[in-house]
Each structure stands twice: as C-alpha cells, then as structure tokens.
C-alpha cells in the first residue's frame, strides 16, 4: 500500500501538471489516443520479452511524433490521424497478445492498473520520471505557455514552436506510460483531463492552475486508493470516479458563483 501511495502521488503530480496543458492546448483526444496506443507498445514488450515499460515508452513517443508529423504535413487532419494511430496500435497489441499466450494476468494489470505488483524499481522510476517531467516543464514553462496561447506570437518571440510541441508530446507520452501502473491504459486519459479541467474552473493564472490541478490529482489519488483499499474496489476506477465527483462539485460551486 505504501508503494502504491508513493507511486500514486508521483503519478498525480505528473498528471496534474501535464493535464493543465492538455486542457489548454485542447489535446484530450491526442491524450486518449496515445494512451490507448500504449497498449501496442506494451504488447511488443510481451512479445519480444523486453521490459514492457521500456517498449511502451519508445512506442508511444514514436506514435506521438508520428501524429505530429502526419498532421503537420497537412494531408490528413489531426483527429483522423489520431484515430488511425490509436486504433491500429490497439489492433497490433491485440494480435501480439494473442500470439504470446500465457501473459493474460499481466495484461489485465496493464489495462486496468496493478497497484499490488509495484516493484522497488518502479517506485524509483516514478520518482525519476516525476523529476524529469516537472523539471522540463518548469524549465520551458513560459515557452510552453506562450505557444499554448498563440503559436504565431510565440514564433515571432523567437520560440521554436515545433520544438516545443515535440517536447510536450514526448513528456506527455512518458507521463502516460508511467501512469498506466496506477490506473491502467483504459483510464489513464482521465487523469490527463479531469484535474486540469477542474482547475481551469477557478484559475485566474497559469501558476494557480498548475497548483490546483496537481492538488486535485493528488487528492483524488489518495482518496481513491484509500476507498479502494477500504471497500475492495478497483483502484483505477476508484481514483477516476473520485476525480470526477470533485470536478462535478467544483462545477456546481462555479455555477453558483
């Protein structure tokens, strides 16, 4: 349980931060697409015997950059390219899994989260990824923020918007993969949207939105994990439902304002 709480907090800090920009840059569909595409990456790990986390990270970064490339070239619209990458990655995953029978228990864990099987290495990994993600975003915060506000003004200010977009996609992919252990592939996109959306209801500036989003994410995770422990319910679902209820309460409070 302690390991789950620690990794859960790391994951919520990461997701909370990333969620702010997923919401502002209107990337929730890309987030969902990359999360589901991760399944293909995980399956490649099963099939080849390489650590699925590593293959998932490499694969999701490749998909994210692939989506960016395809939509930039302009021939196919972005939402179509996301849809195609997402579905075909899942299909690849399903095929590879069927070819490597005997891993169905692990598979369930990847799809729905598996907080009971967190290893010491994964605890450390979550810490490093948190430092990496938070560090990078904070280092380039003003560039990411201005690019999210208006890409042309950002370019005129000397920012390489393309580099920033690629950086964000890489950070997003890594964050998604690390969150899979806690909430599973199916629900990970919820953590990328709900905390940020909740924070946006009240935030007047971006720093506040980041703090609020991380706060909501951490709260949802801790409460969700405790509830799942107490009532023996699925932790991933418990966390996401808690986050949803928090969002609805915030929405209600905002409407009353």
């Amino acid at each position: 349980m302690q390991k789950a709480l620690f990794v859960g907090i790391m994951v919520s800090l990461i997701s909370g931060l990333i969620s702010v920009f997923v919401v502002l840059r209107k990337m929730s569909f890309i987030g969902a697409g990359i999360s589901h595409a991760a399944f293909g990456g995980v399956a490649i790990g099963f099939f080849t015997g390489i650590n699925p986390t590593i293959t998932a990270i490499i694969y999701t970064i490749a998909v994210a950059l692939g989506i960016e490339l395809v939509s930039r070239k302009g021939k196919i619209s972005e939402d179509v390219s996301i849809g195609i990458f997402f579905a075909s990655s899942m299909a690849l995953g399903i095929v590879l899994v069927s070819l490597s029978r005997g891993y169905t228990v692990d598979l369930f864990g990847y799809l729905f989260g598996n907080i009971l099987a967190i290893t010491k290495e994964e605890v450390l990994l979550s810490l490093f990824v948190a430092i990496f993600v938070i560090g990078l975003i904070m280092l380039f915060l003003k560039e990411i923020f201005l690019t999210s506000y208006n890409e042309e003004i950002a370019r005129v200010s000397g920012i390489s918007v393309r580099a920033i977009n690629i950086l964000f996609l890489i950070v997003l992919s890594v964050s998604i993969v690390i969150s899979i252990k806690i909430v599973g592939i199916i629900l990970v996109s919820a953590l990328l949207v709900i905390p940020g959306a909740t924070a946006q209801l009240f935030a007047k500036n971006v720093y506040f939105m980041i703090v609020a989003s991380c706060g909501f994410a951490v709260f949802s995770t801790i409460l969700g994990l405790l509830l799942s422990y107490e009532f023996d319910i699925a932790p991933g679902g418990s966390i996401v439902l808690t986050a949803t209820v928090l969002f609805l309460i915030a929405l209600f409070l905002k409407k009353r304002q």
Partner: protein
Amino acid sequence: MKAIEINNLIIKLNGREVLKNINLSLNEGQFIGIVGPNGGGKTTLLRAILGLMKPTSGGIRIFGRPPEEVLKTGCMFGYLPQILKVKPDFPIRVIDVVMMGRYGRVGILRWPGEKDRKKAIEYLSMMGVEELRNVPFGQLSGGQQQRASIARALAGEPKILVLDEPNTGIDVIGQGDFYHLLKGLQKRFGITILMASHDIGTITAYVDEIACLNYTFHYQGNPLGALNENVLTELYGKNVDLLLHTDICDKCERLRRV
C-alpha cells in the same frame, strides 16, 4: 540600411497566386499603412515579412537580414495578429499577457525579472489599461483587449511594429486616439510601423506612406494620392462611393457624445 526591403515577391498558396510583384522599400522610423479589401493579401504580406510564411519567389530583407534569421532573435517585431484566437477561459490576466511580450527579450531558460515587470506596467499604463492588470484577459471588452494586446506587442521594445487590422473593437473616436498614440510612439522611439487596414478613410491622415494592396500594389506613396476614385476603383472594384470625413464631422461626433 532599409528597415524593410521587398523585391519581386510572389506568394502562392495551394497553387494559387495570392501576392504578385510586390516591391517595397521602407526606411526605419516610417509609418506605412497597407490598405485594401479583405482577401487581398494584406495578412499574407505581413506574415511573410514576419518570417511566418515563406515566399514562393522574391526576397525580403529586414535590416539586411532574411526574415527566418530575424525571427530567431525574437526581438525585432511586435506583432498584433488580426483575430486573436484566444479561448475566453484561458487562465491569463492582463499583466500576464503583456509580460509575454517580454519573452523574446528574456530568452530561453531564463525567467522574467523585475525589469520586465516594470516595462510591462509602463506599457500597460501607456495604453491606458493599467488598472485592469489583474483582471482576467477574457473578461475585458474588445477594445480593452486590443489595447492590452498592443501593450504586449510594444513591451518587447521591438524595432518594427506589425499591426494587422488593429481597429477591430475600437470605435471611431477611439481610433483617432489610437492613431495619435502610434504617431507618438513613432516620434518618441523611432519605431517602424506597419499597419494593415481595410479602413482607408482615417488611416490616410496619420501614415507617412500608404500602399494599396489587392493581390498586387495598385498604389504606393503619399497617402492623399490614394483618396482618388481611380485608385480606389482599381483596389476595391466598381461602384465605389467616396465619402470624405472632414474636421467638422469629427467635432460633431465629439459634441454629440458629451
């Protein structure tokens, strides 16, 4: 050295020619108005000058350097795009918007400091919106947003100010004040100003030079020369009615408001 030098510029978009035979020579510190109908290529020309769009053929030089090179410095231009596509619930206050104008000066891997904040407030008060600085940008009126955005464009203390239809959201009286402000900036800081507008009437009183653009330049030079039926017909098409504003009209408006 010329601030902006354009030679035989042609721009094609999706196979279609949008700008043809564009030649322009602008000295530093000049205020030029680019007028013409919507769809005539004004925005495209501005974007090409800024380095946001590559020419199909022909050359553009900003103080002798190509636009892509200038773009990387982040300090040359202050830009006000035509329609600011900003979602109203974007978590940003007026002061944050203006601070973004300083990012080009601050540079990568560095944080804005006290000096940047002071400059931001200086330009906010110059534009008359200093009291609004902690208000969420989305809550401002159209005219207030324009003024705050202009403060943002100026905050980086650019050498060239590029304004694309800055008059949207500002009423007629406000426009007069706005032009006065620009002239003041021009005199005080020696900035070069490029303004695209479809409002040919008011602009001619304030600019040093005017260029009439509809796919190509139909006229370039002294502003008063543009207020000519031949030029306007070529620019806007047939059935052009010339209505002249005079001093009397302006005074009437002011009296009626008081």
